[in-house]
């Protein structure tokens, strides 16, 4: 094994440790989807614009298509599969997305959820304008975004303990 072209990568994804041997050129998105079979993270453009592949790396949203899997070695990752509670209860963001009809085909949705999760932790009481800017790094072709903005605001209220 040429260590420059093949590496053992260990990551913690949604609290669970995974180890795999990957080519060093493999992207984190492909590693998650193909090696770890966590297919909730989607790939839409592979050049960093669409945002479908967004995951949290040590709590911060990043493009999984613009990172090599080997770069995530030792990191803590969160993907859409880890968003709901262990008992299956949907996260307030997931609930709000359903109630507000904030998704249609659902392909861009996992990335949006991960960005919004991190965003609402930093900014628990955002304005609609702040939500717009926070999700501007995500392309959605179905919804026209308005229901997504509404869902984010509703989830924020719920997370703050207010009645939506």
């Amino acid at each position, binding site marked *: 094994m040429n260590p*420059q072209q093949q590496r053992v990568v260990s990551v913690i994804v949604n609290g669970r440790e995974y180890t795999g041997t990957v080519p060093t*050129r493999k*992207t984190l998105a492909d590693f998650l989807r193909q090696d770890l079979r966590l297919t909730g993270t989607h790939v839409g453009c592979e*050049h960093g614009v669409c945002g479908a592949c967004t995951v949290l790396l040590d709590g911060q949203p990043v493009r999984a298509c613009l*990172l*090599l899997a080997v770069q995530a070695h030792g990191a803590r990752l969160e993907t859409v599969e880890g968003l709901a509670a262990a008992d299956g209860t949907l996260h307030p963001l997931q609930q709000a997305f359903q109630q507000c009809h904030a998704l249609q085909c659902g392909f861009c949705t996992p990335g949006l959820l991960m960005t919004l999760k991190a965003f609402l932790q930093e900014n628990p009481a955002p304005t609609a304008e702040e939500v717009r800017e*926070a999700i501007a790094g995500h392309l959605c072709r179905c919804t026209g975004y308005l229901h997504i903005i509404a869902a984010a605001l509703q989830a924020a209220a719920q997370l703050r303990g207010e009645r939506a």
Partner: protein
Amino acid sequence: MKPPRFDYYDPHSLDEALALLARYGPEAKVLAGGQSLMPLLNMRLVAPAALVDLNRLPDLAYVRVTPAGLALGALARQRQVERAEAVVQGWPLLAAALRYVGYPQIRTRGTVGGSLAHADPAAELPAVMLALEARLVLSSQRGRRTLPAAAFFLAPLTTALAPDELLCEVQLPPLPPRTGHSFQEVSRVWGAFALVGAAALVTLDDAGRCQQARLALTGVGPVPQRASAVEAALAGEPLDAERLRQAAALVEQDLNPESDVHASAAYRRHLARVLAQRTLQAAWRRAQEAQKA
């Protein structure tokens, strides 16, 4: 869209990194934030023999206030810089411009140094560095040297970095008191590269005259440019909207933009004038507020 094969290195010390660059020379690519390099790799527009990943280098992700101003390490992330209190307070132009660099998810990973080393002619940060009169510290096994930002950008995607050199630190001198700033750009959609962007700094003297104006533009040529004619026309002058407008019109003298699929040369030149005027106006207003405060 999958990267070609390369030898991947993640050195754990600067010496190790510089040794790799010395060994591979132009066959190596440096991977910092990767937000420009990775798309190129995915598209197979670049095929380096070796990738030297800086992300495991210790202690390079600093944002530090020094007696000489602000020092940003090679791994200082754009998001980290944008939010650093020292930057917001002391170099607000940089924080303001960073908001226009890609999206938050890109800035989480992208580095200030990486953007400068990449030297895209439509990028925001190179122009901002010209306006802030940044000094860039380059290291190699041969030693260290420091270049002013104005001498760093040579051509599109080409800088003064030698193949074995690494951009290790960005140094920003402090701004004088009574300085106002503004960054504005015209882009097709939020987060896209600028068609044209302008960074302005206006410093007032005790009497409220323009002590110094700095204006730098991106998207108007192969490299970012300072608008020296505009700056000269304002230095030492009393300011009003009309004078700013007249001075901004001089911006076109210094520019020789090219037409491309996104904008014609005439449109870019025109936008440069419009944005020069708008940013100078906004910077002047902020400087006046600073003077009152």
